């Protein structure tokens, strides 16, 4: 009587929660990818900074902007690379916070899905619970 409807409702609930869970997991995977990209860029920029610091004052620094090599001031190049490193580090910290939040959500969703599954099993076994 009320049982098959209840089962169907539980199934719909289960589907919704499972979809939410897979969405969160996809977000976590994307987060990891972006994080990897930023980490690589951070490493490269730090190498560049080290090289720039080894240079003497009068050394010539050029930057590749599109197909054009433009002469840059050493101080300016240093400042640019430093700013970029700061920006990337800030982005990485932000991503860390986001992924932690996402992982918490993932865990709680997993628990919710489990609970719904258990209720479904109980319903199908008992067939007398509401």
């Amino acid at each position, binding site marked *: 009587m009320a049982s098959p409807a209840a089962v169907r409702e539980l199934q719909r609930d289960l589907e919704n929660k499972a979809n939410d869970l897979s969405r969160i997991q996809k977000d976590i995977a994307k987060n990891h990818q972006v994080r990897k990209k930023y980490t690589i*860029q951070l490493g490269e920029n730090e*190498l560049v900074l080290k090289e*720039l610091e080894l*240079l003497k004052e009068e050394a010539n*620094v*050029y*930057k590749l902007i599109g197909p054009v090599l433009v002469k840059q001031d050493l101080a300016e190049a240093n400042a640019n*690379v430093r700013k*970029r490193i700061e920006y990337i580090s800030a982005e990485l910290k932000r991503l860390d916070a986001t992924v932690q939040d996402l992982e918490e959500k993932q865990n709680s969703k997993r628990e919710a899905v489990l609970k719904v599954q258990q209720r479904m099993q109980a319903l199908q076994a008992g067939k007398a619970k509401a």
Partner: protein
Amino acid sequence: MASSKGPASPAARVAEMEKMSVEQLKAVKEQTDLEVNLLQDSLNNIRTATTRLDLASAALHDLSLRPQGKKMLVPLTASLYVPGTLDDSEKVLVDIGTGYFVEKTMVEGKDYCERKIHLLKSNYDQLLELASNKKTVADEAGAALQAKLKQLAPQT
């Protein structure tokens, strides 16, 4: 990619594996195999980069031996070369990454190549150690899995 493989000593690891079910063991082995493959890919990348740097270093050395004004063919594209003359080979333009180029002397340029090659070699060694440790764990998991399977199917 942080995956703690539990106890660090091999004997303790094997003991842990014996306690796991076939399913869990299979999962552990697959996970470790994936990691080993990733590490191997990284190792290959480092080897390629080191080779390129070696070539650059050799080219630099060759360039330093050539006299100024020497006739040469300059590549404009992969299939188009244009005749030109060698200008001052004492100055070289070095790509240090993220679109920055630095003018260096020939000696500094060679030194740059050497430094980069050393850095890559040390990274390679570190990675090699990591990879062989992971491979050991993967092999242990595989052996434990085989033993378990044999246990479960003693007939025939």
